[in-house]
């Protein structure tokens, strides 16, 4: 944490203290998408912003030491496939593509509403990873002065 890349000391220290809170709130929003406002889209953006917080405050080198960027690429591609897998499981078990084949549970419980919860998680991973990676690529893109 000694390199000069990134922002000033104040931003770095506040990021260090607050990044777990942002991540926890994003995951909370994803997991309660079927009970309260929010869901996979909103929670995914919050997760992406938590990672971006570290990227903007500490710079690229620190972030690439912390996260495995190649793995995030794989995760992003895999989540789109997982959505399809859940849809095809719906054909075999519920009779239609993306049918809600899991148990409905009781209203207002966390594990309820069948496939809505897994789909929310898949969408959260998808949205979060892709938005983080876009800014990652944009931040690494340096324009060299043409002549």
């Amino acid at each position, binding site marked *: 944490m000694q390199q000069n890349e990134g922002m000033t000391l104040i931003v770095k220290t506040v990021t260090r203290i607050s990044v777990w809170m942002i991540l926890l709130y994003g995951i909370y*929003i994803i997991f309660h*998408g*079927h*009970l*309260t*406002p*929010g*869901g996979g*889209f*909103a929670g995914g*953006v*919050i997760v*992406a*912003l938590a990672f*971006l917080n570290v990227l*903007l405050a500490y710079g690229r080198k620190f972030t690439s030491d912390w996260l495995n960027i190649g793995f995030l690429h794989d995760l*992003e591609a895999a989540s*789109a496939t997982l*959505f*399809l897998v859940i*849809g095809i499981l719906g054909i075999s078990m519920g009779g239609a*593509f*993306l049918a*809600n084949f899991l148990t*409905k*549970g*009781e*209203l*207002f419980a966390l594990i*309820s*509403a*069948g*496939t*809505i919860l897994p*789909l*929310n998680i898949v*969408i959260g991973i*998808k*949205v979060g990873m*892709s*938005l983080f*990676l*876009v*800014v990652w*690529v*944009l*931040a690494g*893109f340096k*324009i*060299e002065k*043409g002549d």
Partner: protein
Amino acid sequence: MPVEYWLIFILIVMIIASIAALEMDDILSSIVAIGIVGLGVSLSFLFLQAPDLAIVQFLFEIFALIILVKAFLGKDYHKQAPSRINKILAGLTIITLTAIFIFSVSVFELLPPFGEPLMTTAQYYLDNGAKDTGAANLVSSIILDYRAYDTLGEITVLFTAILGAFTILRIKSKSKKENSELSNATK
């Protein structure tokens, strides 16, 4: 105070902010003004009883701000003085758009008044949504259960857009490649 008056106030602020965003010379001021418009949309969603959308719109605003600042700030940006023909074209466009607005007033008069919706098909979702899917959030039950195909298409579009952005940024421009080859040769 009824919802309608609040919305009129927010919309007027948004129109002023969007005109300011388009006409200001400084690029950072434009981006901040666009932020005002987006937060106005988010606030209107809260007044219109759509908390899901308000959250997503708010986050969208933060994210768009980061992308725009990261991409456009620090580039040497030259403001070109508008030429004569551009001024004439802008004037013509304003006249045409005003004409469109005046003619469209009569179309909007055909609509039902604010607060009495046109669409009634969604009554089924309101009545049976919780029983059919077991989710308390009916918006979530629509996007991921009744209309999950839409979400599948949406994920595909997002995937393609992000992939497109990656590909565009990874392509090395022709001149730069030649330059690097030249510099390698000289080494």
